[in-house]
């Protein structure tokens, strides 16, 4: 039972009043005296040598204060994964060569946008076009153009896992399936475009306000690429309008160009990306071709898995080398198997670089896995829910990729969601069309790490740290490096501190993500913030409580172990009238310590290099398909998610609902189209995000588990909840129509084609891929 005052409660977020009134400041809302408008010149060619850049005409435009190219930089490469030199394959401004349409070539700062735009048009770049390659299969041909000298056959990263002997194990399986799945190019489409505002002090210190998920990495990589000590750089993250992995690359050319222009112009410079730039040149999700082979015994227990993934990486690494690994490891959740082989290849192509996007490799492989398991269940005459129950990882298990499960509510998720969605009854109505419309119901399953256990760079910093400073009035200043980008970490950190110290939320004053004030933090990625920064906040709060209880124990002549903190008071448990106020205790502390403030800190490092713990979830989707047209409607999503103890159930639901929105968009409509490396649909309208009137009913049940690692037993929600969405939809559509869609997105056209094919094959034997042994 939840006996907490603040933890586990449906509380409004601490920043929501500022956000509903328009008071919350995002980077583009800030301006500084003398500020210039910056714009970036991008490559119009997918692959070319830069012969010459002439800025003389552009410099003559009235109002232009600076123009920079690579010649104005130290020409130092960067890459978020800086543990290995080969993953640092990108210059923040192109040096000698461009490798995708949209690559940053030069930047202009002017007194207004019109002048900057005019100057941009007048910069003359002479290119020598090179042959380009856009398809990852073609790119691996020895005759294909090679993008980078260090990468023969354009292999950006390969990663292999081998456990047991799948080849032998397949021979002992009752059923083996091999299928190929493909996924499309998708993009974050956060509402706030990337933006950075940079200014230099006369002493050589740089301040950058930026819309980022990872201010600490921005500081490090800006230092590296500008060749200055990162400690001279202050990176401040104001409110951020969403990221979803698209602002987690450690550095973007936007920040770099703003800083460089500001130095050259000796004035503050702000660069805001246009929506066109965001769709055409920003990071995006990896399209991937997945060949998955899974073998099961006659009871449907998964015995062996072999998987090859070919990732279309685009022109540079970004976070892709990690995506290549994660596609191998994430598919070992939430099901266990003994024998496993994974071969992942990330291939360079002349397209915008692909990096992390919410779920980071998970949505692609879970799409493949859950559809294949649905096929296997059907072939064996098993119920997919029952098969998932048998194969699901439980507390104490270890996944084929080595994920150690310290708490699993997966089976409970399955039981709950199938009961709530009426799975058994509704499943029976499969393929019984009422009129021209057929109803279908399908399952998707997920499991996800609650945070990575390592930094991408070499550092001695803890993964997360929190500092607490008490004020004389009994309020607390809390400093955290954690980056709230809309997911609500600021609120959760305040809830944790308030809970431990017996204070109301309004007494907690948070400063987050300012590298000069707040301690280092890895940032917002990998679903890590609640567990890592939450634990750091918990540790700091406990340290503060120890100090306060010591003072209170003296004052009350009691044992510190007998004290409780509640309602701005410290008192002996059971005797609330024998108390000292929190504020008095703080002031007594200061008196005893020559006026020094009560200042404590807490840190957290993941105990496991893979992740401290894992979330689980099961989704059931119900659809209705028009058999005449292939058009379909998603009727309902029923969800059960195990995020341990939800620290704020309203926030957790918001994450799940957002994941379903994004997962649904990914499954049925979102797609970036390319022609010769050019993005053809660089707009919201062209790309097609889900709208309010498209979203189905969503019913969520929290499956509460007691996780030993998470703060108050909490685990992640923000990414794992995305994975089951697409396969649940696809499995429901199959259930309705008998049409399997193995290439995303699912469209009415593909379903109709499948229906026609099925009609023409009716009566003939199906499923030649099945191999009974």
């Amino acid at each position, binding site marked *: 039972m939840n006996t907490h005052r603040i933890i586990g409660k449906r509380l409004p977020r601490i*920043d929501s009043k500022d956000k*509903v009134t328009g008071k919350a400041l995002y980077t583009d809302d800030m301006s500084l005296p003398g500020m210039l408008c910056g714009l970036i010149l991008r490559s119009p060619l997918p692959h070319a040598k830069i012969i010459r850049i002439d800025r003389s005409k552009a410099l003559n435009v009235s109002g232009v204060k600076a123009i920079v190219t690579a010649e104005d930089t130290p020409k130092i490469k960067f890459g978020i994964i800086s543990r290995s030199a080969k993953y640092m394959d990108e210059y923040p401004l192109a040096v000698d060569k461009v490798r995708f349409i949209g690559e940053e070539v030069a930047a202009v700062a002017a007194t207004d946008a019109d002048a900057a735009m005019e100057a941009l048009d007048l910069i003359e770049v002479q290119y020598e076009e090179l042959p380009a390659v856009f398809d990852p299969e073609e790119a691996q041909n020895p005759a294909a153009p090679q993008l980078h000298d260090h990468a023969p056959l354009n292999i950006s990263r390969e990663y292999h896992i081998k456990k047991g002997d799948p080849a032998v194990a397949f021979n002992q399986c009752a059923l083996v399936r091999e299928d190929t799945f493909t996924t499309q190019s998708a993009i974050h489409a956060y509402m706030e475009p990337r933006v950075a505002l940079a200014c230099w002090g006369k002493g050589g210190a740089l301040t950058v306000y930026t819309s980022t998920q990872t201010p600490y990495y921005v500081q490090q990589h800006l230092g590296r690429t500008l060749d200055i000590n990162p400690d001279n750089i202050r990176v401040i993250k104001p409110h951020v309008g969403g990221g*979803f992995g698209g602002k987690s690359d450690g550095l973007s050319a936007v920040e770099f160009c703003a800083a460089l222009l500001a130095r050259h112009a000796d004035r503050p410079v702000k660069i805001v990306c246009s929506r066109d730039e965001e769709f055409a040149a920003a990071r995006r999700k990896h399209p991937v071709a997945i060949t998955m082979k899974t073998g099961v015994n006659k009871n449907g227990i998964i015995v062996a898995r072999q998987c090859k993934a070919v990732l279309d990486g685009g022109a540079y690494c970004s976070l892709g080398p990690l995506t290549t690994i994660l596609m191998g490891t994430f598919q070992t959740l939430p099901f266990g198997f003994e024998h496993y082989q994974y071969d992942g290849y990330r291939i360079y192509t002349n397209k915008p670089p692909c990096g992390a996007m919410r779920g980071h490799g998970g949505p692609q492989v879970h799409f493949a896995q859950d559809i294949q398991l649905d096929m296997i269940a059907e072939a064996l005459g098993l119920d997919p829910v029952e098969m998932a129950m048998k194969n699901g990882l439980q507390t104490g298990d270890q996944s084929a990729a080595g994920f150690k499960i310290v708490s699993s509510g997966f089976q409970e998720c399955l039981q709950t969601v199938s009961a709530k969605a009426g799975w058994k009854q509704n499943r029976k109505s499969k393929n019984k069309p009422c009129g021209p419309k057929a109803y279908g119901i399908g399952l998707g399953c997920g499991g996800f790490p609650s945070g990575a256990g390592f930094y991408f760079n070499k550092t001695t910093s803890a993964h997360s740290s929190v500092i607490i400073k008490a004020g004389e009035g009994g309020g607390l200043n809390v400093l955290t490096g954690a980056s709230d980008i809309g997911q609500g970490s600021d609120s959760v950190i305040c809830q944790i501190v308030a809970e431990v110290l017996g204070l109301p939320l309004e007494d907690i004053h948070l400063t987050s993500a300012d590298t000069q004030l707040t301690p280092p933090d890895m940032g917002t990625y990998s679903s890590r913030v609640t567990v890592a920064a939450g634990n750091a906040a918990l540790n700091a709060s406990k340290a503060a409580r120890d100090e306060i209880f010591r003072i209170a124990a003296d004052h009350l002549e009691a044992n510190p172990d007998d004290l409780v903190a509640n309602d701005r008071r410290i008192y002996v448990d059971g005797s609330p009238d024998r108390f000292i106020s929190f504020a008095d205790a703080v002031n007594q502390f200061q008196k005893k310590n020559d006026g020094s403030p009560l200042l404590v800190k807490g840190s957290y490092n993941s105990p496991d290099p893979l992740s401290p713990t894992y979330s689980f979830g099961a989704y059931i989707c119900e659809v209705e398909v028009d058999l005449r047209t292939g058009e379909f409607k998603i009727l309902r999503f029923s969800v059960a998610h195990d995020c341990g103890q939800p620290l704020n159930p309203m926030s957790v*639901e918001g994450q799940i609902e957002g994941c379903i929105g994004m997962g649904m968009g990914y499954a049925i409509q979102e797609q970036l189209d390319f022609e010769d490396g050019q993005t053809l649909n660089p*707009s919201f309208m062209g790309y097609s995000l889900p709208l309010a009137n498209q979203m189905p009913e969503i019913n969520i049940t929290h499956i509460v588990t007691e996780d030993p690692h998470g703060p108050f037993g909490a685990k992640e929600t923000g990414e794992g909840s995305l994975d089951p969405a697409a396969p649940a939809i696809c499995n429901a559509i199959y259930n309705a129509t008998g049409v399997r869609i193995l290439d995303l997105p699912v469209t009415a056209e593909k379903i109709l084609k499948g229906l026609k094919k099925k009609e023409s094959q009716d009566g003939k034997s199906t499923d030649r891929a099945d191999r009974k042994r």
Partner: protein
Amino acid sequence: MENRLIELTVNGEIREVAVKANDTLLEVLREKLDLIGTKEACSMGECGACTVLIDHKPVLSCLTLAVDATGKEIITIEGVSSPKGLDAVQESFVNKGAVQCGFCTPGIVLTAKDLLSRNPNPSDEQIREAISGNLCRCTGYTKIVEAIQAAAEGGAGK
């Protein structure tokens, strides 16, 4: 291009401002009147983040020329709350957890206010239809719809 002085009535105040003929209302609100609560997310009329009310109707300020807004009553998100507190729709967004990153929020709050002023008791479907021109990438819209419904039930539109 030349600047010329125009008068805009914003949140009940007459503001004199120098604008170019091609300045959008969004640019003028944000850059010249410091009303940064109106957000710019696409500049092409596709996302609804820049929604303001002009003569009580929701309008995309990125597609509206500032000079065309003279003589009309413009309400931005800054004009919705009062020093005393939040408006009922805003309060409902806060209490129902309808705000995540918050970038779409001002536009949706204004769209919702227009809906409730026309239809104090909208159905779920009518709410979804009304805000279908406002993109949100964080919430899946569920809690936004709930917040508008709750505001209506609390009499926000009456």
